[in-house]
């Protein structure tokens, strides 16, 4: 029931290990800062608040609406969380949502979780916050600024997340940039509209019911640094992705230079260069042997289990 159209949740296996680890490190740093900032802002209140609101964003993804042809749209939530709670709290909320989705529901991989948190949590929160606060300030805190900021923030968050996802796949050698970027970007330009509509709907309701809450993100100013970070992320990805898709070889070149693509082929590891396995000179033969070993392993486990069950039954009878 909570299965979402997980286009942006990268499963394990689709990112090369260095890319996955790089984004784990980046996300871990931002999460650590977010934990400190939110703890300073909300104090002891923050654990229950973040936990329940993470559950809220997760459950809120069930609230769908029919679009066309049997498809439906639903909330992703990073921008809405950033608008209502501020970017740092949104990072924590989205980290919890994505973490539980990966760990329990296998929506996105565990090794890929760093990248998924980076794309949907961090980029989503920062870019959403940047667009929202900009438009809101421009409008002088008027209602149209709040709604336009909400729509554009949510739309931009989804699109920029998608571009980041496409670039990571390209960097991993999983998907060529000149196909992944336009395809991912194109689809999410549309999905982003749905996200924008839902976000505006939520803001419109809260504007009527609890206008004071729209000051939450503002009350504890996130500071210029966060605004600049949102701007830089949005600009960098908006410029980088067309460049990468125009010159996919460029990205491939970067990847190769960094040793991403052919990490396994590097010389220090070729201990026995002429042999595939020690004593086995043929890859096909190695595969066959591995197949036999694999079957033996599984058969042994099944056999041992069956035997222990029969023994257990024998004892009870």
């Amino acid at each position, binding site marked *: 029931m909570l299965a979402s159209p997980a286009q942006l949740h990268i499963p394990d296996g689709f990112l090369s290990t260095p890319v996955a680890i790089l984004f784990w490190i980046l996300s871990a740093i931002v999460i650590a800062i977010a934990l400190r900032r939110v703890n300073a802002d909300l104090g002891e209140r923050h654990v229950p608040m973040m936990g329940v609101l993470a559950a809220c964003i997760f459950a809120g993804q069930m609230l769908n609406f029919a679009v066309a042809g049997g498809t439906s749209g639903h909330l992703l939530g990073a921008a809405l969380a950033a608008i209502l709670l501020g970017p740092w709290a949104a990072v924590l909320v989205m980290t919890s949502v994505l973490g539980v989705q990966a760990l329990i529901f296998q929506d996105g991989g565990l090794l890929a979780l760093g990248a998924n948190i980076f794309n949907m949590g961090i980029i989503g929160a920062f870019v959403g916050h940047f667009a929202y606060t900009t438009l809101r300030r421009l409008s002088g805190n008027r209602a149209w600024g709040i709604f336009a900021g909400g729509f554009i923030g949510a739309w931009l968050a989804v699109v920029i997340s998608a571009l980041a996802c496409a670039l990571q796949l390209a960097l991993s050698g999983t998907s060529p940039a000149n196909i992944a970027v336009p395809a991912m970007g194109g689809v999410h330009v549309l999905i982003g509209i749905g996200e924008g509509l839902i976000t505006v*709907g939520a803001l419109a309701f809260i504007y009527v019911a609890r206008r004071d809450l729209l000051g939450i993100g503002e009350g504890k100013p996130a500071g210029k640094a966060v605004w600049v970070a949102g701007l830089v992320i949005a600009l960098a990805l908006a410029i980088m992705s067309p460049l990468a898709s125009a010159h996919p070889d460029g990205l491939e070149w970067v990847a190769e230079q960094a040793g991403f693509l052919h990490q396994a082929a590097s010389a220090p590891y070729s201990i026995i260069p002429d042999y595939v396995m020690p004593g086995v000179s043929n890859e096909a033969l190695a595969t066959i042997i591995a197949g036999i070993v694999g079957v033996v392993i599984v058969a042994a486990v099944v056999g041992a289990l069956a035997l222990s069950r029969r023994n257990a039954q024998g004892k009870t009878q």
Partner: protein
Amino acid sequence: MHIHFLDPYEPGNSPIHALDARVKFVLTVTFILTTSLAPAGAWPVYILLFAISISVIVLSNLGVGTVLKRAAVAIPFALAALPVLFTVKGESLFMAQLGFVTLTASVEGTERFFSILLKSYISLQMAITLASSTPFPQLLMAMRAVKIPRLLVAIFGLMWRYLFVLADEATRLLRARAARSGAVPQAGLKTGGSIVWRGKVAGGMAGNLFLRALDRSDRIYAAMAARGYDGEVRGFALPRVPVMHQVVLIAGLIVLAALFGLSRLLGA
């Protein structure tokens, strides 16, 4: 409606269920890392990893068919990797006619595509087995043991506790909307508003859910504070990992290290 069926944990008394959650957690992550590190086309390594995951599923008594079927959830994502069939340069394998364009699939591209698919599939099997054989509180304990920040683990725990409550709440909102949405059998009479309107309604409901969650979090905080909560999340000291489970951990890590070595040899 209660949606406890959401929790994928299936109680059991298999050896995998009985294994210490910390050992399971570390071994699962290392297994996925080893799988990820195997280079494209390292078929012998994939076969051995697959054999290990099948053995673990058999031991866990979760049902091989069930887990293998559930592990197919990532297949749609394979669409993202499909282009590498044709874009990786190499020996030509087959041609596909797409309108005016002829696409040539290379052996290397095909190898990379199926490697990605297989790695993803094997990793998912292990992740599913972990989630299905370990209750969430034990996973939280495992996260604490591997030094994930305590506050983050506490947030995870509270989120899990209230996920079902809020999912129930969302279900009620959905039911209320369904109850108030008319459908007219008469042909030609349009029911329901435009997409924009529907989107905004869903948004309003999301906002409503948010307000309820915010109020609830206030109540929860008050209740916690009433019981003496002062911002410090305290937990029992983690029990020692039993010796037998430590042996399993070390043996598992050795096997995975050996497979990693093998994949290096094959990649060279």
